[in-house]
Structure formats: C-alpha cells, structure tokens
C-alpha cells in the first residue's frame, strides 16, 4: 500500500529525552482557563460549542413557532424577548429576520466550525499522530481566546436595542451596509463584523497550528499513508480554512469601509428613505463573490471533519478496514481542491454572465463524483462487517444517510436551469440543512460519544445515547424532509409569514408538523446534555480502549496528562485499519504493534517490512520527499 520511501536512520527518537512522567505544577487558571494543553483547549471549544448549539437551536425553535403556528399568541415569551414580541403577541418581523440570521451565523461558524473543528482537530491531531501537543501551545490558547472574545461580542449583539444583525447569515450589502434599510444593520451589524473578524483570527491561528502539527510532529513511522482518515480530514480542512477565511476577512473589511468610511465598494445608485446616496460605481455582486469564495469552502470546512470522524468510527465499529483508504483520501483531496472553484453556483440568478454560470455548473456537478465515491465506500465498509451499534456508530450511520439525502438534492441546485425555480426556496433550506447542517452535527455527536472516554476517562451512558440518537434522527428527517415539498411548491426562504399569499397558503399542516418535530428534536438534546454532564463526573470508569480501536490515542493512559504519553511516544508500524485481519488473534491490531509480533496475520508484503522494523534502537523514518 504505502509507496513512501522508507529508510533506516541513525536518528534516535527525538522526543526521548522529553520526560512527561510528572504532571506540570498547575493551578486552576493555568489548568482550566489559560491552558496550553490541546486536550483542555479541545474541551473548551466543545463546551462553548454546546452552549452555542443550544442557543442556535432555541432561536430556530422560536422562528419555527412563527412559521408553524402563525396564529399563536406568543405573549408568554415577552418576559424573555421583551419588545421583540409585539403588543398583539406576535413576533416582530424584523426580529424574525434577526432570528434566522443569528441562527445561521451561530450554527455555521460557532457550532460547526469552531465547535467541530476546534474540538476534534485539537483533541485528536496530537493524540492520533503521536505528538506531545500542538506545534504551538500558545497559539492554540490564543486561538481559543480569540474565539471566546468573538463569542462574547456576538452574544452581546443579541441584547442591544436595535437588535443583532438581520440581513441573513450571508449579510449581502446593501441591506447589511445601510442602517436605514433594516435596524439590525446598525450596531448589530458592526458587532457581527467585529465578532467575525476575531473569529477569523481564531480560525487562522488554529488552522496554522493544525497544519504544522500534522506535517512536523508525526511520531516515528507515522507516514501520511498511515494517517487515520480523521487526521487527513482535519488537515485538509485546515488548509481550506487557511486559504478561504482571509477572503471573508477582506470582504468584511471592505464592508466595514463602506459602512463607516464612506467608500463605495459594494454600493451604487441607491435611493433610500427619501434620499439618494452619493455612492456610485460599487458592486453588490462583488461582495457575493468574495463571500462565497469562503462560503462554499466553508461547507466543506464543516463537512470534512465530520466525514473524517465518521470514517474512523464506521471502520472501528464495523470491525472492518475502511474500504478504499486511498480513494477516501483522494476524494477528500479532490473535494478540497474543487471546493474553491464552485462558489458561484450560489449566484446563478444574480445576473452574472450566463457563461460563467455554465462553467460553475459544470464544476459543481463534478464535485458530486468524489462525494458519491465516499458514500459507496462507506456502504462497502459496512458490508459483511460485524457491526456494533455504539451511539457513535449510530450517529455515523445517520450522517451517511443525511449525506446521501442532502447530497442528491445538490444535483438539482447545481444545475443552473433547475436552480432558477428552486433558488432561495425551502428546497435549498432542506438541501443544506441535511447535507451540511445535520450531517456535520451528527459527525460532531458521533465524535463526542466516541471520544468521550478519552476526554474524561469515563463512559457516557449508551442507552441514553440510543434514545438520543433515534429521537434526533427521526426528528431531523421530520423537520427537513417536508421542506423539500414546500420548496418545490415555490415557497421562498426567510418569509416571516405566508398568509399574504393566496396561492402559497396551503402548507400550514406540513409547517406545523415541521415545527412540532423541531421542538421535540430540541427537547431530545437535553437527554444528551444530561448524559454528557452527568457522565463527566458520575459516568462508569472507562477502560483503556473501550471500542477496541487501532489508533494511537487509545495507547495513552486513561486520563492522559499534559504530554499525552508518559515515557516514549509509541512508534507506528501499520495503517490504522487492521480490523478483522485473517489469522489475527483479536479482531483488531493497533497501529503500534510491529509486524514482527503478528506473523500469523501478516500479508506477504508486510513480512518484508519486518526487516525494517529496527530490531535495534534505530528508528524507522519515513521520508515523504
């Protein structure tokens, strides 16, 4: 399999002298707050992510109340929402827009980018590649605290008088540039932009760290061809983020200039509130190009880590090697590259040159091929497995189902001719909530259930996990599947109410179903919250390798200290997917077991490798050059 050039080097284990048997002397502040330990930073991201997910979920339930029960009296929400509930007991239309905007922003950036990548890239990269910590623990700490500052600002914006940003999470100008167009474009938008600027700094600090760590700090023997797919996913995600987030930063910066310093990057020919603005020559479409240059890769920034996590969990719990490891890596690589050249499929009907539309349609539909390969490979991995339904495994299977269901509707939307009708309708909402929102969320959940024992040294309760999974899985499908029908019928997104439309007023039953399902799905998350926090302190003590997994993190002590391994870092000899190998005693052989110890199960070419396994103190260095 591995074609890397392997040679024996005189170099001894470079980290050998680095003894970590003793704990650093720490106090509360350096241990829990300003920590440089990647595991603690991961937990910080996770807990923050859970907080945001809960808030984002609650916001969505509030606007689902409006959509599902347009006649309902919501006066009882007044103690919480104040003047956002009108005197008639209705949600204010502008608050409705603020809700959708903040729900989108929170879920995309704060939950599925920071909460997912931040948690698992931080937690798993050093543990799975065999490193003491991130390349720069300090930058890692900064990454979290920039995210924290960004979170505080975004959270604050929810409470200001003019309300948070309300131009949609895509913040298209001129709406987002003109406070006179919508109240949320005043201070709320300023805070949004400030918060996002800090968020981007956080993402970049984290991303540089992830990339550097994966390239430089892999343990002996851990060649790129032996990396678990999780690490491949985090690595490529970080690269995508590093290349695309700066573009969002520049887009935001120009918007700040337009808002505050009288420039006209995005503004032209505007007459609003009885006044013609002096701005001329700008292009609102320019912003859309810049935004989606991040915005589309962003989809893969949230999705790839989830797919990586799923690959790992499905292989482990099917007790089978992941099918087509190289194809999995190849398709992720291909997706990562293509993700940069499909952005304008969000803009087919903005009036851009139709020829450009044709090009982007072609490129967009190409990206469906590697995605399809991934799905088939998952199915082939499950085939003839010996499947253990751990909660993590259930969520991974759920992810694959969402990835299929949501991915296929992408073929409609990527087709510019079909997109004319479906663009900005509920069909789009259904599409991306399944393929990006729910799939990534399930990846996050799968990861939490799977690596909880490594994080806290205790097990989460499996039965509660099953209940949580089934309620959420059924709930998510009940919420998002009906939206396809509503979209096909032409219902536009971001509508406060459909009561104005005679022709478009026939889905009150379906909308009600969706809203009830959304409320129940949110309620089911409290089962998870209980399970999570209860298990941190009261869960059953975890064994060293609860899922009988092959990857390196399970060779650390049950509660690893700062530095991860007491003594030497294990050397890696094999790929991470030697599950159910014929002839082997157990149905798994961890990565650090040399081939010389498993003569009964070695394949022919693996017996060749035994000679290279330094019988002496010489280490194997895999040269990637």
């Amino acid at each position, binding site marked *: 399999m591995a074609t890397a050039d392997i040679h024996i080097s005189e170099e001894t284990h470079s980290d050998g002298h680095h003894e970590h048997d003793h704990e650093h002397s720490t106090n509360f502040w350096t241990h829990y707050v300003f920590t440089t330990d990647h595991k603690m930073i991961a937990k910080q991201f996770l807990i923050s992510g859970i907080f945001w997910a809960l808030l984002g979920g609650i916001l969505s339930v509030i606007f689902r109340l409006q959509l599902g029960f347009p006649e309902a009296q919501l006066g009882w929400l007044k103690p919480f929402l104040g003047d956002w509930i009108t005197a008639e007991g209705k949600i204010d239309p502008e608050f409705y827009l603020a809700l959708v905007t903040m729900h989108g922003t929170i879920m995309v950036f704060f939950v599925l980018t920071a909460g997912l990548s931040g948690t698992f890239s931080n937690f798993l990269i050093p543990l799975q590649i065999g490193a003491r910590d991130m390349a720069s623990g300090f930058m890692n700490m900064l990454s979290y605290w920039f995210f924290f500052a960004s979170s505080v600002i975004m959270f604050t914006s929810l409470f200001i008088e003019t309300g948070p940003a309300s131009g949609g999470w895509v913040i298209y100008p001129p709406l987002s540039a003109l406070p006179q167009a919508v109240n949320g474009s005043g201070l709320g938008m300023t805070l949004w932009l400030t918060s996002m600027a800090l968020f981007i700094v956080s993402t970049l600090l984290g991303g540089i760290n992830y990339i550097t760590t994966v390239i430089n700090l892999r343990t002996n023997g851990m060649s790129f061809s032996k990396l678990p797919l999780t690490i491949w996913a985090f690595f490529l995600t970080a690269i995508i983020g590093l290349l695309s987030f700066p573009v969002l930063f520049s887009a935001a910066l120009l918007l700040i200039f337009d808002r505050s310093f009288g420039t006209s990057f995005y503004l032209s020919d505007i007459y609003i509130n009885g006044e013609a603005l002096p701005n001329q020559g700008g292009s609102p479409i320019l912003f859309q190009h810049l935004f989606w240059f991040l915005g589309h890769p962003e989809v893969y920034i949230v999705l790839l880590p989830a797919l990586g996590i799923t690959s790992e969990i499905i292989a482990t719990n099917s007790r089978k090697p992941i099918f087509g490891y190289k194809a999995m890596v190849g398709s992720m690589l291909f997706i990562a590259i293509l993700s940069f050249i499909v952005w304008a499929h969000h803009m087919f009907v903005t009036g851009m040159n139709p020829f450009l539309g044709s090009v982007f349609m072609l490129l967009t539909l190409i990206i469906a091929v590697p995605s399809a390969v991934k799905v088939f490979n998952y199915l082939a991995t499950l085939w003839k497995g010996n499947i253990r*339904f751990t909660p993590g495994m259930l969520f991974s299977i759920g992810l694959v189902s969402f990835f299929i269901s949501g991915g296929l509707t992408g073929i409609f939307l990527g087709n510019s001719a*079909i997109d004319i009708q479906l663009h900005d309708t509920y069909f789009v909402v259904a599409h991306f909530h399944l393929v990006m929102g729910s799939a990534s969320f399930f990846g996050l959940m799968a990861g939490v259930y799977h690596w909880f024992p490594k994080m806290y040294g205790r097990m989460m309760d499996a039965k509660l996990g099953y209940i949580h999974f089934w309620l959420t899985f059924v709930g998510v499908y009940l919420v998002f599947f009906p939206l396809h029908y509503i979209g096909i019928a032409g219902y536009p997104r971001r509508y406060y109410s459909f009561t104005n439309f005679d022709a478009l007023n026939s889905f009150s039953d379906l909308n009600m179903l969706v809203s009830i399902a959304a409320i129940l799905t949110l309620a089911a998350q409290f089962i998870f919250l209980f399970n999570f926090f209860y298990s941190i302190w009261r869960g059953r003590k975890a064994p060293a390798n609860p899922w009988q997994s092959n990857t390196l993190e399970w060779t650390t002590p049950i509660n690893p200290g700062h530095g991860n391994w007491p003594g030497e870092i294990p050397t890696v000899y094999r790929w991470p997917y030697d599950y159910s190998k014929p002839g082997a005693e157990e149905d798994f052989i961890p990565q650090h077991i040399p081939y010389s110890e498993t003569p009964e199960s070695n394949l022919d070419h693996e017996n060749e490798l035994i000679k290279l396994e330094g019988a002496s103190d010489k280490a194997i260095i895999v040269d990637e050059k």
Partner: protein
Amino acid sequence: MFGIIIAIGVLLLLVILYTLFRIGTLVNVVKGTDKKIVSTSNKVNGALMMLFMIGGFGFMFWYSWVYFDKYTLPVASEHGELTDQLFWVTTAVTGVVFVITNVLLFYFGWKYQYKEGARGKFYPDNVKLELLWTVVPAIVLSVLVFTGLQAWSDITSKASDDAEVIEVMGYQFAWAVRYPGVKDNQLGNYDYKLIDDIKGNQFGIDITDENSYDDFTPLEMHFPKGKEVLLKIRARDVLHSVFLPYQRVKMDAVPGQPTHFKFLANKSTQDMRDEIGDPEFDYFLTCTEICGRGHFSMKLKVVVDEPEDYEKWKAEQQTWLKLNPDYLEEIPAEKRELAKIKAGIENTELEATL
C-alpha cells in the same frame, strides 16, 4: 398558581426519569452487562434500522403520491416546461440512487449486526469496484450537466428584437413596473438621483429623454401570452429578487447593476383559472432575496393577457407624464409640445388642471 403546578409536575417527571435511569444503570452493574462490549441493545438498534427505513420510505412515497398536486405548481411558460422536465428527470435519477443507497445502508446495518464470535470480512479495497462507482456517477452526471447546459444557454440567450420590454423595479417593500409606451415603444432613461417619491418620480425618469414621454407605470403587471417578454430588472435600495413562480422566472434585482430575464408565457390568466378550476386565481410576482422587514409582503398582481387584450390594455393606460403633470414644467420648452403629444395630454386638459 397554574404555572407552579406545571413546574412541580415537570420537576416530578424529571425526578422519576432520573430514578429510572439510576435503576437501569444499577441493574446493569449487578448483571455485569455494562462490562460487555455488545449488549442486547445491538439487536434492537439493528431492528430499528429496518423499521426506520420502511417507515421512512412509506411516509415519503405516500406523501409524494397522494399530495402530488398540492406541492407541484402548474407551469405557465415555455422554458418552464423544459426546466420542469429536467427537474423530473433529475428526480427520477436521484430518486433511484436515494432509494438504493439508503436501503443498502440500513439493510447492511441490520444484516451485518454484531454476532458473537463472528469476524468482519477483511476487504480493504477493490480497484475495479471503485473505478466502477467513480465512472458511472461521472457519466450520469455528464448527461445531466449536458442537458442542463443546453437549457441554460437557451434560457439565457439574447432576447429577440421584437420582445415585449417591461421594466421591473424592486424597492422596500413593493414592486413597480414601467412600460415603454405605445407611441415609441422605447423605455426612457433614468437616473437614481432624479428619484423623488413625494413628487411622484419613483423610477427616477429622466424627462430630458423623449422616449420617456409615453412611458406608463401601471399598478399591476400585464404581459401577453405567446409573445416573448424581456424583463429589465433593477432595484433602487437593497437587493430584491423577481420571482414569478408559475412562469419559472427568477432573477435578482441589484441596485446599480440592471439585470434581465426573457421568457415566453404560454398560459393566460384565464387559461390557468380553467386549468386549476379556480376562477379567483391570479398570477403574482414576489421577492426571493431578503430585503428587510417587509420582505414577505412584496407581492404584485400579474395578469397574462391574450395578445389582443394586452394591446388593448396598453392603449388604455395613462402615461406617467400625464399623471404627473408637474414634470411637464421641467421639460425644455422646445420639447414640450412633443411631450404633450406623446404623453397624450390635451392642451385643454392641462389648462384645466393648472
């Protein structure tokens, strides 16, 4: 009082649930099942996979079949029939893939669930198989792309010269339409700096341009059946998006960057009323780009006429200049007579209003 009782009830329920959870955990500890890698729950989960699949598909097919007429909009334009056809072809192709892959996913989950002492099949790769499922999707997608590209280039091709030109302008929170007039059939120039809502020039019509004298701005949109229509689309404050659901027309309205969309309506309002059996039915135009507080209420009535009715309707419309005679003053003196003629203003009428 009622609130307190509910709160106590909820609290009791939570306590009961917690107690049940504790009992379950302790029973597991006593039985030792918590130490096993796989418990009986595995079978339950496997069975639920199948149950979910059957239930889910049942629900989906039932709704898709029974409520077909409810969620599909009748189509009333030529290119719309084409895109609808593409939509259904894509639905058929993806539907087959959707069913097969989901069935395999859940069936494998059930079929290959954990068995004591069993082993998974060590099957790390198969190049032929992988090539197969790379090439087949690529071919299928190429076919879809090809048909889509053709449709797209037809739809976005240049409008014919005799197309009926109509200007649509979005603003917070309504649509305004302007017709080029029956005398010269040319839309007059506009400039956003000339917009003045109070005086009545919401389009920013430039009255130094002779073409604007016979332009008219009705309160509802009309266009003819069976004749190509070219919508010239713009916005004057924030982004909006023109959406004619039945005609399958959608195009953003962008301040500073006019856009356009050409189409051919093939069913008049009356045709559609007959088709769906609703004598009250009207087409409409609505907004699909978030534009602020009133986004959801930007609705404009649309009437599709038979060609002769359309011409008649056009001839009956009063020109904008006639309805806003204040602007006649601002027209250079040498053009004023021409303006009066094109705008259909009788001198006597004017004197009467002055």
